[in-house]
């Protein structure tokens, strides 16, 4: 990280401007409500006061499909009395007739109309309902929903994405320029080549299971990229590989990957589509078939890399029973214990994603691992600061510490 000279000025500029934009453009909230006027009264039954101070505001950071309403409930809407049974919202669309758009329970004081259209103007009113009568509030001023192009409420998410993503890209760039980066060894991955070699020696096949999810799960993609590395070795050694899958798209991708490995190894004639077979999309139907394959074909090595659910242990135990070397990896925390218990090597969570980068020995991919570590360092620093602040705020009631915790929680909030 000494070679600071190699940060491209373009990146720095981009980062700084975005930061500035986000902070400067942070919006201000809060408007004074107008005084409401009671426009309509009814004397048929019980008299109640109408809701007042109705205001309509454009909902911030939307595509122009929402308007927020706020009002002060009728002063007769008290707990236990029950004369006000609810509220009714009326809307005039482009000067048309007022239509009911919602009925709300008593005590309600706000509503979000999520059915507005850009370019239309609306006028709202709200009525307090009693048993048989309505008491209308003031009308709002006419309002048109607005479209915002950037969602500033997500500015912290954007900054964090920029920080973590930027670190990954930065280190990929550093590595591309030829700087050597250190990455420690990962235990399970050392075993991959041995496991392939073992199958070759024994003259038995390798079974590759990419999980049971489709291509829309990153874990499947991680499994497949590892397959890309393994299949090169397999093509070199000319070992038999079999890959049953539970999704048609994964079958397509798997074939593409293995085929190209055989081409790179210079023996495309050895490749066959039969290496990758679709079984069924059904979780346990797939498991039943794979279990059958295991006990009948007796593979020497089994790879379980991808997204696994309850079937993890069924597969791993059967693999163990037939005496195969098993290398597993998943990012589903609930299934990791079973892989740890039944497999020879397990890639835990993040290691699954790091594995393909590690196996490729491509400096750019290795650089991205370095970027991930920046994310971890950030996480650790923030956690330490947050915990210390929370502790001090709690123990000695230091208000600055409590507000620091609040700030951190705002930044690291998901909404």
């Amino acid at each position: 990280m000494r070679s600071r000279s190699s940060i491209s000025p373009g990146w720095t500029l981009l980062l700084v401007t975005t930061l500035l934009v986000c902070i400067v453009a942070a919006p201000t909230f809060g408007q004074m409500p107008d005084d409401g006027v009671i426009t309509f009264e009814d004397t048929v039954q019980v008299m109640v006061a109408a809701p007042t101070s109705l205001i309509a505001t454009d909902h911030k950071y939307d595509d122009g499909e929402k308007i927020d309403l706020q009002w002060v409930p009728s002063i007769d809407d008290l707990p236990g009395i029950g004369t006000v049974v609810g509220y009714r919202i009326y809307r005039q669309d482009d000067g048309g007739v007022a239509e009911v758009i919602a009925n709300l329970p008593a005590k309600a004081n706000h509503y979000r109309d999520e059915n507005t259209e850009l370019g239309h103007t609306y006028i709202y009113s709200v009525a307090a309902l009693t048993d048989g009568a309505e008491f209308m509030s003031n009308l709002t001023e006419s309002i048109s929903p607005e479209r915002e192009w950037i969602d500033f409420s997500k500015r912290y998410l954007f900054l964090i994405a920029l920080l973590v993503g930027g670190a990954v890209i930065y280190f990929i760039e550093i590595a591309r320029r030829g700087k050597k980066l250190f990455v420690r060894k990962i235990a399970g991955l050392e075993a991959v080549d041995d496991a392939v070699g073992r199958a070759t020696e024994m003259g038995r096949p390798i079974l590759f299971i990419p999980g049971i999810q489709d291509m829309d799960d990153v874990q499947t993609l991680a499994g497949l990229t590892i397959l890309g590395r393994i299949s090169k070795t397999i093509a070199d050694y000319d070992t038999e590989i079999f890959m049953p899958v539970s999704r048609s798209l994964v079958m397509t991708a798997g074939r593409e990957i293995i085929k190209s490995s055989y081409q790179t190894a210079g023996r495309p004639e050895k490749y066959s589509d039969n290496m990758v077979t679709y079984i069924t999309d059904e979780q346990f139907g797939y498991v039943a078939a794979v279990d059958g394959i295991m006990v009948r074909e007796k593979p020497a090595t089994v790879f379980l890399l991808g997204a696994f659910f309850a079937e993890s242990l069924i597969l791993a135990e059967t693999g163990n029973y037939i005496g195969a070397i098993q290398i597993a990896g998943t990012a589903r925390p609930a299934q990791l214990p079973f892989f740890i218990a039944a497999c020879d090597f397990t890639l835990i969570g993040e290691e699954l994603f790091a594995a393909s980068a590690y196996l490729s020995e491509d400096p750019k991919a290795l650089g991205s691992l370095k970027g991930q570590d920046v994310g971890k360092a950030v996480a650790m620093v923030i956690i330490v600061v947050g915990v210390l602040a929370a502790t001090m705020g709690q123990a000695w009631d230091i208000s600055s510490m409590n507000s620091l915790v609040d700030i951190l929680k705002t930044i690291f909030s998901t909404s």
Partner: protein
Amino acid sequence: MDNIGVIISLILILGGLVTLLIRSLQAREVDRRIIFLFIFLAVAAPILFPMTFKEKATQVVKSVFDKIENLPEGSTVLLSFDFDPAMAPEVQPMANAISRHCFEKGHKIIFMSLWATGQALLSHSLSEFILPGFPEKENLVDYVSIGYKAGNEGVLNVIITDIQKMFPTDVNSVPLDSIPIFDNIESCKDLDFIMSIGGGKPGPKEWVLFVGDPGDVPVGVGVAAVVAPQMYPYYPGQIVGILGGVKGAAEYESELIRVHPRFAEMDTPGLRMMGPQTLAHVVIMAFIVIGNVVFFRGRRREKKE
């Protein structure tokens, strides 16, 4: 006849385990099919010949029990059935046990549900499980079902100040005004105890956050086992106690039988379902022990050679 079955299967299982343990002293591995056989026996035998094990209530369960036990007679308790048929096998037993306990102590019960599917379950369990044991209990005097209202947490937000506003009538359209139970009950704050049974959202957690905390009403919860660990942070500050899964129900039932012996004759699904669970857990733990014995004896033998 039943007892003979229980004894034979217990002898078979425990005797088998001891034999395996002795064999393991010679570092002999156990075939996995033998393990499978034991698991099968451990689960099947208690289903065929129901066997119950003595449960002793843990503090979290006992707190709920003691709360209901120590309320003065005639107190009003609200039970919310916040679950659906899929969750029912796990939480139905506790709903039954708690309702019976309240009746036994002479408390009045208000039944309700935050789940649309809960209302059907509610009337089913009332007629099938709860009322048959208490023929003397009278609708609207000793208990009332106000059913389900849509609105999730919104419902809770309203009933914490006014129950009638959300539930003008009970399930049979009787106005709440005319129901004796509600004479002194206006809002959730007037209740003596609330028990929410469920596992999803809305459910026990919402009861704690929207009613228990702001209204300062004691709330107890019964949840599915997977959810239980998430509820512990609220205990004992914000909730009276937790019943977690089948085990929680079993503990409650055993406490019920211990204090009120007449419950021994009623069905105890929680205790019954714990039979296969307990035996299977014991078998698995026994095999962990056997595995370690095999391992250490084997290692010692290697050293000697």
